[in-house]
């Protein structure tokens, strides 16, 4: 046989930059880099020239200046003498507040609507289909405005509660629905173990966590006993005791009392005030996103093949066990990833707060602070940094979850 000669010496020619696949990608990347660098230089030059012409510079010093505006809905102490950064922090907490509240209620609405849409009750399933279609096809901004209008234009003013022939009454003497917001009783501890109410609530949370761990231990013990003897001990009284006893004792020791809202002067005093804008945003985001979640839930349940249910029934499982052990674990794997991206949408859509005057981070940092200081670039950059961090964190959670429920295949 003929012997293989050495391959011809690779002499580099310029045309290989285009025609040789080994070099072509390098050429393209170099070109892309060049184009990118040039456009960044162009934009940067424009920016510098424009800023110089307007007598501005990029400077975050304004954050320590006095904000000078009030925020009615706040979770932490804030007055108009505090700095812009403090105002932004109040806004940030408000964003997190409405996002968390809306995520919880949207999930509740969505799961109920999704399950009911699969119900064999014709009227209910049609009603749910109607709900889903109506809310998915109308912009969330319109829903927010509609509910805000209900809150401000339909609810009675506080003075309607006054006098002998009051036109409005409080529900159970504890809840007042007014056009300024909803007032509810505020629980607090008369003789708490700590000075600060927040620390007392933290203690309650710690006790609840303890109960949870204890309840888990009981379940593990019951399962072990069931596997050993074939009979599961009745754990219900024990679980009830574990959950309720420490909680009730703690409440008694710390003296839980309720502070009721009462009409004083022109407005209600005391209790918790949930402002109209917060309610509008919270409720609108919940029903709007709930419609999307309902579709995810329906798709997830329908995606579990009927054979699975039938096989479980053939094994002799009761219907509740079929649902808990066979259908739900498989459906959840399908439901949860889109559910988390709906949570992401809620967080991003909560920025619509600015349309109804709820002081979230977009309305404080991107609204009033931006307009007062004129620091457009800095404010928008900070705003984007916050939302990017939030969505990256949520995506991280989603990826961890996806990895944990991935089908373990060979």
């Amino acid at each position, binding site marked *: 046989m003929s012997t293989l000669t050495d391959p011809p010496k690779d002499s580099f020619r310029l045309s290989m930059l285009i025609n040789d696949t080994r070099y072509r*990608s390098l050429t*393209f*990347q170099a070109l*892309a*880099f060049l184009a*990118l660098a040039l456009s960044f230089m162009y*934009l940067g030059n*424009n*920016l510098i*020239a*424009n*800023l110089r*012409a307007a007598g501005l510079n990029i400077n975050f010093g304004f954050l320590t200046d006095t904000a000078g505006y009030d925020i009615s809905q706040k979770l932490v102490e804030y007055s108009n003498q505090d700095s812009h950064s403090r105002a932004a922090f109040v806004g940030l907490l408000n964003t997190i507040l409405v996002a968390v509240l809306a995520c919880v209620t949207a999930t509740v609405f969505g799961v109920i609507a999704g399950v*009911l849409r699969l*119900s*064999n*009750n*014709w*009227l*209910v399933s049609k*009603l749910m289909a109607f709900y889903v*279609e*109506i809310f*998915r*096809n*109308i*912009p*969330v*901004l*319109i829903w927010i*405005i*509609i509910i805000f*209008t209900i809150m401000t*234009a339909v609810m009675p003013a506080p003075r309607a509660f006054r006098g002998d022939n009051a036109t409005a009454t409080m529900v159970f003497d504890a809840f007042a629905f007014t056009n300024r917001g909803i007032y509810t009783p505020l629980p607090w501890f008369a003789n708490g173990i700590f000075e600060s109410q927040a620390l007392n609530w933290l203690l309650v949370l710690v006790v609840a966590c303890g109960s949870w761990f204890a309840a888990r231990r009981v379940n593990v013990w019951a399962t072990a006993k069931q596997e050993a003897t074939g009979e599961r001990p009745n754990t219900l009284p024990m679980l009830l005791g574990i959950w309720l006893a420490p909680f009730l004792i703690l409440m008694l020791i710390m003296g839980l009392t309720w502070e009721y809202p009462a009409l004083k002067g022109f407005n209600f005093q005391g209790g918790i005030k949930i402002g109209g804008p917060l309610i509008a945003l919270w409720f609108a985001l919940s029903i709007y996103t709930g419609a999307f979640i309902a579709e995810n839930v329906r798709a997830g349940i329908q995606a579990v093949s009927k054979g699975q249910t039938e096989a479980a029934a053939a094994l002799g499982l009761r219907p509740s066990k079929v649902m808990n052990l066979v259908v739900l674990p498989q459906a959840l794997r399908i439901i949860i990833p889109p559910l988390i991206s709906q949570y992401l949408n809620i967080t*991003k*859509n909560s*920025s*619509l707060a*600015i*349309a109804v005057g709820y002081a979230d981070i*977009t309305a404080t940092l*991107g609204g009033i602070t*931006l307009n007062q200081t004129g620091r*457009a*670039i800095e404010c*928008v950059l900070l*705003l*984007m940094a916050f*939302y*990017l961090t939030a*969505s*990256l964190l949520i995506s991280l959670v989603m990826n961890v979850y996806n990895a944990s429920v991935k089908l373990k295949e060979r």
Partner: protein
Amino acid sequence: MTDQTTNSIAFVADGNIPQSPPPARETGVVKWMRENLFSSWANSLLTIVAGLVIYMVLSGALPWMWNGVWTTSSLSECREVLAGEVGGCFSVLSERWNQLLFGFQYPQDQYWRPTLAFVLLFIAGAPVLFFDLPRKMLAFTAVYPFLAFYLIWGGTIMAPIVAFLGMGAAAFVFQTYGKGSFALGFFGAIVAAFAVWIIGGALIPEGASETAMLQAVPSRDLGGFMLNLMLGVTCVSLSVPLGIALALGRQSDMPLIKWICIIFIEFVRGVPLITLLFVASVMLSYFFPPDSTVDLFLRVVIMITMFSAAYIAEVIRGGLAALPKGQYEAADSLGLDYPQAMRLIILPQALKISIPGIVNVAVGLFKDTTLVSVISMFDLVGMIRGPILASTEWAGVYWELLGAAAILFFIVCYGISQYSQWLERRLATDHR
């Protein structure tokens, strides 16, 4: 014995008993209701609750709609006509209908122009949406953007003609050289288009807009539902090609290109549209040359297009990932280069898979165009919250206006999603 037998058989059937009808509870409406509404006590409870909800909504809404007043010129007049009865003041719709559709600054004698553009949109969109129509209609689709621009903005006819000629030159160059080398055709087309635009732009005489046949309308005079539709149609049609490019870039083997695309997509998807609109309204002008003025409409179109392109890119990436690897390998083994393989084998299949997702993005984007009211553009929501509710005649007419806006959006969005479902059935060529 025989006697006993004859006696013991008291009756012998000598014919068939006529079929008796099924029991009343097993037929017709009653059966349907027993099965679908009252099959168990829980179901009955649900039915009753649902019925109550429906009754409450209808008993509130129907008289309000039935007694509605359509012909008064202000809220107080409308209240007089109603004389304390429940009823809607729909006259705000009949009186301000044009403002709701076109905004409050568009010249009134020119309303036929956007209306005509809207009607022509269906003719231009039809061959894209329904493949059975003759392909020759696509020629009109190609002309439409320039025609619509001319109709809505008016001004000198030279501008859209030059723009069209530039696109024509680009198409010609791509047809001629794109066969040999995709890159040559592609970049040649860009150069040709820019050459025509620059030369043509220099040829348009100064002040041609003042003497034009159609009165020039500046962008800030656009408004109402027209603005929503314009933003939606423009941004979706611009973002599909951009989204395809970003999706392909994200799949690319070249690390630099890949990372540029990843960073862009993740950045845009991570921030709310409102912050991007803030960028458009307060920040973007810092990045344009100092003496240029780029109007707000264009800035908003740029940002919304970027926004939806990132989402569409993710949808298309899903479609690309769903294709079996064999398709890529088959294209390679046929000796196709990258542009050919993408154009002839990969993208037609990947786009088909992505159509429902793209339509979802389009619907979401169309709904999100209402957000421009936050940066004080007078779209439908901006018109309602701004000029109309602030006017002395109509302050306080919330439900009629918001209801009308909701219905307009519902019609469009529901229509698009129905189209998408039809298309999905139509394209389902593989299974079953």
